[in-house]
């Protein structure tokens, strides 16, 4: 199966139909997005990024696409190959919360069905079990560890019903 993400591979011979100021404004409203338009393309973010040499579109290019209002940014591989290490955010001379903006972009892409399949599986697991992994009982017994305190899953389910976690991709 071809993954739905990372389809935007290069700027080469790319023509953009429209620059969408509404999209830029929308991204500015994300958590961490308030200083987005102060980016002056020093590329310090990409210089410290652990996947700069592994992605088609680097993080400083993502930032430029956002200022230009190019919604194609949601199709770049940088969005989902961000390791969330926060080095770019830590070093940005303009104080832009770059990593946090990427989380917001991931949220947008996810709703459009543009996400690695592992995230869809994880959303289901978090809903069903309230956790990502279950304890390995025999190891705990060997080490004399007590049982992990129980979680009443109906509580987290109730909460995630309210936030509509499993319905985010409806209407895509």
């Amino acid at each position: 199966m071809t993954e739905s993400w990372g389809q935007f591979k290069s700027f080469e011979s790319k023509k953009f139909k429209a620059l969408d100021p509404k999209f830029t404004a929308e991204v500015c409203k994300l958590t961490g997005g308030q200083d987005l338009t102060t980016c002056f393309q020093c590329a310090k973010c990409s210089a410290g990024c652990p996947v700069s040499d592994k992605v088609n579109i680097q993080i400083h290019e993502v930032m430029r696409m956002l200022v230009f209002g190019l919604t194609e940014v949601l199709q770049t591989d940088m969005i989902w190959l961000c390791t969330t290490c926060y080095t770019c955010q830590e070093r940005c001379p303009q104080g832009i919360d770059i990593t946090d903006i990427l989380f917001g972009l991931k949220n947008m892409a996810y709703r459009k069905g543009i996400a690695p399949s592992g995230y869809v599986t994880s959303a289901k697991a978090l809903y069903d079990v309230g956790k990502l992994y279950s304890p390995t009982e025999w190891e705990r017994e060997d080490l004399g560890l007590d049982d992990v305190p129980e979680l009443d899953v109906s509580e987290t389910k109730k909460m995630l019903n309210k936030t509509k976690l499993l319905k985010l991709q409806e209407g895509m």
Partner: protein
Amino acid sequence: MTQSYEVFLGCAIPSRFNNYESSMRAVAKELGIKLIDFDGASCCGTVVLKSIDEHSWLSMGGRNLALAEQRGHDIVTPCNGCFGSLKDTAHVLHDKKQLKAVNKVLLGLGLEYTGKVKVRHFVEVLYDLKDEIAKKIVKPLDGLKIAFHPGCHLIRPSNVAEFDDPELPGKVDELLELTGAKSVSWGLKLKCCGSPLLIANEDIATEILREKMKSAKEAGANCVVTNCPACHTQFDVQAIGIKDENDESLELPALFITQILGLAMGLDSEQIGFELNRVPLDPISDILGL
């Protein structure tokens, strides 16, 4: 004075690294840190959920924070992922609008979060007790050359983590060197381990790990030490069989900080749980006295 915390284990430790929990509990007991079980803990929130939906992430983390707050306890966690996620949640919830939206969800569970809980990493608590730890070292680990990997969310973003210098951290290294071991400086020490990419692209996660291991080897380290189960998954699970371009093995024994401290403090070896470390410890077994 006895310190007490609700201990937030997260999902990965009880699943994959029970030796981390066991050694942490042994060290905590020796130092008089009281760890109270965290009743009703769910997933911390995690960057996975933050990537999917911010509101669900804040609600998941907010519920955990509210539970501890209701019981009047601060939180300690040995996991960088839980530490980063819970602290980040608390940070975002300084915003009144976000807090209101989360409390609307929590109200359905009879909970409310008001922002009173402190979240600490277990190594932060240890750092406060470094003088006591120094007095308790009975078995020096001379000859151990550690490539210490702090991991990202312990130190970045620094305005959220509030623990150590994000570009030149040294606090955990200080703790490790109390044992007589040497924390070597290595080129890619602060680079991400690649673990968060296991969900999206395992090949790239492995490539990052390979770069890290090469750097650790070049610096002359004879083991890697972490304070995070997500990073440890890279160094003690994914690293098995890893080789460089000349087909030379890049494996290094991978240990948790609490195993190093526990051993040097002369604690019960069963609780330190070395038999659960996956990469063979043979290259350093003499130094460890195994």
